[in-house]
């Protein structure tokens, strides 16, 4: 073989290999180890720890795939999906009709897959004697109607209410389901977060603030709860039983503020993105959900 033809050999083989792997990834029956490409996942801060483990496992099984996960907030993820700068948007809230309209206007067709659930946990400092609250009381705390722990059976100290900023899907979910008391007889869609509420740029910051501040209250996905903070048992109304957030109470539906964690793609996923989402939904993927402290789609034990 002459030197000049050898020079062409390697790129040619690479091209053939690439072409074949490209074909394979479109076949549903393809061997999973032949996937290649890169996936960008942007969105929820809550879902980030889960997506990171999934991405790591998937990349280990498919060395040619690279997945980048970032979690500035569900709103950022949805905006990125609409602007066409991410492959998958991870979200801790459902997309709004207004956002779907905006997406359609830009030629993007959001496709929704629920990948897990989360029990949104309300947390306080370990020294706080208050251990159960109704949704109405939580709403009163976050709208600024109740400002002292004394009114809730605690010590005489002001309440420091903390929330995530508007980038967060948790911010929106909590506003709709707790502040505005969605689905309760006392529901009021005009309620907003009070203007004394501290809006924090990340969930981690809020959890560490609560761990150090005896008067603080914050909310976080179940996966972020550590043993340095106390979870509040939530009552739907004063007459209902108080339920602590946990995998079990979210699965059997007794915990009232659990929510879906979803992936959005532009149109039904194909190729390597489909393979990744299929992995997330598989039995193995759902085991990761449980390990990360979230709630799997169905009970598999």
């Amino acid at each position, binding site marked *: 073989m002459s030197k000049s033809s050898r020079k062409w050999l390697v790129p040619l083989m690479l091209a053939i290999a690439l072409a074949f792997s490209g074909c394979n990834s479109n076949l549903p029956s393809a061997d999973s180890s032949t996937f290649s490409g890169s996936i960008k996942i942007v969105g929820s801060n809550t879902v980030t720890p889960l997506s990171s483990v999934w991405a790591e496992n998937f990349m280990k099984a498919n060395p040619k795939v690279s997945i980048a996960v970032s979690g500035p907030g569900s709103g950022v993820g949805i905006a990125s999906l609409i602007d066409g700068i991410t492959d998958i948007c991870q979200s801790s809230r459902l997309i709004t009709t207004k956002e779907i309209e905006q997406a359609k206007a830009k030629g993007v067709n959001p496709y929704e897959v629920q990948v897990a659930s989360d029990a949104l946990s309300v947390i306080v400092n370990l020294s706080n004697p208050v251990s159960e609250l109704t949704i109405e009381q939580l709403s009163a705390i976050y709208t600024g109607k109740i400002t002292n722990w004394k009114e809730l059976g605690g010590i005489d100290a002001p309440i420091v209410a903390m929330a995530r900023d508007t980038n967060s899907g948790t911010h929106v979910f909590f506003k709709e389901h707790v502040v505005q008391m969605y689905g309760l007889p006392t529901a009021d869609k005009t309620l907003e977060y009070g203007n004394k509420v*501290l809006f924090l740029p990340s969930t981690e910051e809020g959890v560490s603030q609560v761990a150090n501040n005896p008067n603080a209250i914050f909310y976080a996905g179940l996966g972020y709860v550590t043993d340095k903070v106390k979870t509040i048992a939530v009552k739907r109304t004063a007459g209902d039983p108080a339920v602590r957030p946990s995998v079990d109470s979210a699965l059997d539906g007794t915990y009232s503020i659990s929510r879906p964690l979803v992936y959005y793609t532009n149109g039904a996923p194909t190729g390597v993105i489909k393979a990744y989402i299929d992995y997330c939904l598989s039995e193995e993927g759902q085991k990761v959900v449980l390990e990360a402290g979230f709630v799997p789609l169905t009970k598999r034990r």
Partner: protein
Amino acid sequence: MAMLQRQITAAVKVSETRLRQRLRLGERVIEGWIFLAGLLAIVVLLGIIFILFKEGLPIFAYTSPWEFLFGTEWCPVSDPPTFGIAPFFVSTLMITLIATVIAVPVGVACAAYLSEVAPKRVAEAIKPIVEILAGIPSVMMGFIGLALLSPLVQSAFKLNTGLCGLTAAIMLALMSLPIIVSVSEDALHAVPREFKEASYALGATKWETIWHVCIPSALSGIAAAILLGVGRAIGETMTVLMVAGGALAVPVSPTDPMTTMTAAIASGIGNAVRGGLQYQALFAVGLILFALTLTVNISAERVLERQKRKFTR
């Protein structure tokens, strides 16, 4: 012989003109480059101004400028959204003011010490250290504020939370200190020696000389230093985002949690869909912020210019 000499001189002359021509060409190319570089800076600046106006102005079709500036409700994700930036405006002014009040006496005193009192070796050791302070990334300062300063402020003032305007202002004071120190030190250094010598000759002490001669003579330079420090404090984002608390109320006291204009932009721009109302509103906030820092920086430039003219005779 004479002919040879003439030939040599002619040859030298020719090579000389060639060299000069070549030099002139090289110079022209360099001149062109420098001109382009200068032009580029202007084009970029104009581009930024243009984009700020283009993206920000349409919001005033939704909210009147009056409501935008003086409205106290900021609910960008509500339906319908309201955009009132008074809380951010007041927070920015309050935090900047406090940061300046803290940083100026310390900064000017430090500059006076470095230029008039400190032995040369000490001054040479301290100046680079102060300048290193300017190089600490703002996210690190935010981290220090979060972990060290905010618990301190909380217990010192018996607050509900250490995440408040005061904590942010102290961190910003630390961050604008290097600029204030180095620019005022230069200004104090530029005070002619005769002034000081005259003062000492009249029997003034060192303190009297600094207070009555050096600082008044360098006042315009010090004023410029302060304005540059203020400009830094207004525009700082990451630190205030992390430690100022992020409440949306119009702050009444410095110990209230608050959101500055920069923090509002940083925490909101991510989920704003390009061209949407929130996007436009945040660009309008940016426009106001830009106008504010531009005014401060231009005045600083003016004052500095006056100082220079004062001592060049």
